[in-house]
């Protein structure tokens, strides 16, 4: 186990280094001089020289990367051109919205996807199963922003039950009641992802149901409901729970579209706005943080999977 942990962690670090090189190269792959592009046509030579100097663009490429990566390791992702504040601050400003949105979305995904997936598996081959599987496929085919626009139209503009846009922090006036701003966005974001978890739960249940120990359990005369709960479900959920990790990481980036529809002050909308503003350090910083998060979550999932299920022998 110890050797596995070291090897798996090493692989994750190697991937992170490679990914960071790609993210670093990004700013140099943009056609034209990035400094001119970022500052616009009206920039004076002094401004250009100052920014070039600040970003260290006159150093050799390898030195530039090492400086950039070294700073990133110390939590310094550079300066935002637009806000003129550190990129880390820009990211932290959107973090609360993005993380809460992803958490609430996960609640919907788990509350809907897992039980409905179990139901479909138990009723395999029946009309219920076909209906639910069809529903899952339909949900997976729906653009989240379209769902979002309809939710706004019905529940915000029509019925007036929930706010249609924006999100004031829960630490501001209104407190936890401000979470109501995230209900419609999280539902829109949950739709396609709940469908994926539903399908995964169903497939995983059916996989386990074919195992020898399930047949043995049935042959011993154990009540069918107990076989499903104790023998199938407990083992099937292992695969499902391990999918929660990367679903959560994926939500943060998929939220780019949802945050734009609902005008939420999250990290995703910051990325889109930074693209429009050509604020490249912010784009780089956000992508680096999200990739990092994705790799860490995957690492934790892999290691705990191995811990929970000793049969999993990965080379």
């Amino acid at each position, binding site marked *: 186990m110890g050797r596995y942990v070291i090897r798996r962690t090493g692989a994750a670090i*190697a*991937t*992170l280094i*490679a*990914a960071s090189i*790609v993210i670093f190269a*990004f700013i140099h*792959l*943009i*056609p034209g001089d990035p400094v001119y592009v970022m500052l616009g046509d009206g920039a004076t030579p002094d401004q250009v020289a100052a920014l070039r100097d600040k970003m260290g663009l006159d150093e050799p490429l390898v030195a530039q990367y090492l400086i950039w990566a070294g700073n990133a390791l110390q939590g310094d992702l550079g300066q935002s051109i637009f806000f003129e504040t550190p990129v880390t601050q820009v990211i932290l400003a959107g973090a609360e919205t993005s993380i809460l949105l992803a958490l609430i979305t996960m609640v919907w995904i788990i509350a809907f996807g897992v039980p409905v997936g179990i139901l479909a598996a138990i009723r395999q081959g029946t009309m219920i199963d076909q209906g639910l599987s*069809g529903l899952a*496929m*339909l949900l*997976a*085919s*729906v*653009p*989240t*922003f*379209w769902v979002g*626009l*309809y939710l*706004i*139209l019905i529940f915000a*503009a029509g019925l007036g039950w929930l706010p249609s846009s924006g999100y004031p922090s829960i630490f501001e006036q209104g407190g936890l009641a401000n979470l109501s701003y995230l209900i419609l966005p999280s539902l829109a974001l949950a739709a396609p992802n709940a469908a994926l978890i539903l399908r995964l739960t169903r497939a995983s249940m059916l996989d386990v149901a074919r195992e020898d120990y399930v047949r043995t359990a049935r042959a011993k005369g154990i009540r069918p409901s107990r076989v499903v709960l104790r023998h199938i479900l407990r083992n099937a959920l292992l695969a499902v729970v391990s999918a929660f990790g990367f679903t959560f*990481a*994926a939500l*943060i*980036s*998929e939220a*780019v*579209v949802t945050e*734009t*529809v609902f005008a939420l002050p999250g990290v995703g909308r910051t*990325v*889109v706005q930074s*693209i*429009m503003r050509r604020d*490249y350090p912010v*784009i780089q910083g*956000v*992508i680096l943080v*999200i*990739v990092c998060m*994705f*790799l860490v979550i995957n690492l934790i999932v892999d290691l705990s999977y191995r811990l929970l299920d000793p049969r999993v022998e990965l080379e």
Partner: protein
Amino acid sequence: MRQILMIWARPLALRPMTAIGIAFLLLIVVFAAASPWIAPYSPNEIDPVNRLLPPGGAHLLGTDHFGRDTFSRLVYGSRLALLIGVGVVTFALASGVPIGILSALYPTLGKVLMRMVDVLMSFPSLLLALGLIVILGQGVFNAILAIGLIYLTTTARIVYGVALRLKAEPYVEAARSAGAGPWWIITRHILPNMISPLLVQASFVFAFAQLGAASLDFLGLGAPPEIPSWGNMLAESRIYITRASWLLIWPGLMIVLTAFSLNLVGDALRDRMDPRFRKMVGK
């Protein structure tokens, strides 16, 4: 030939839902091929007097904020949808298949290539596409490349897995010991046995390309506004949703039904690959 056709057609025809999906996809193809004859108006014909008209009358599905005919724009939009789908699938297969097969046949090269695929996969897909759009600039062709890059990785992974399994098959071993070169093995043994999983992958990639392109359009980073696309239609009608909610339904439905139909087809093809299912329908 007829027999081959039956093997493929049967599982599709067995399910009424899949047949409906295929019918819808055919409708899109007809829309795209015969747009000028089907659409009553030019998709970009501006008519300020008749803006935001509700459905009915001279404009079957109403008009948008420029007075453009919604139905005509929907019909022309199917052209872009097909172009994006075909483009993304072509790119993903043309890049992912060689990467996967070469990685399986040459383990040293494979280590490097699959590692690179892993790195690309550590990027969340939408952010990867957005980053590429920033580098390449906005446009239909660049949208295809950006979305295609996402599916290069998944395609390469799937192909790699299948090729590894095929490589260990006795008939490939036999061909190799009989002196067959890599080109022979790839074209005679590996590729032909890979058609089923590739078809399944192609239909899913086609479906998700629609959703990806719609997201880019919605963010204003996809097709330029002068090209009628379903995603752009939704993005443009967004500020009018309370005044003209009918503008929201049709482009959205076109995206959903196209993606749904392709998913249905992909699912049916996947079941066909499953030997248990094949036994059920008698090969």
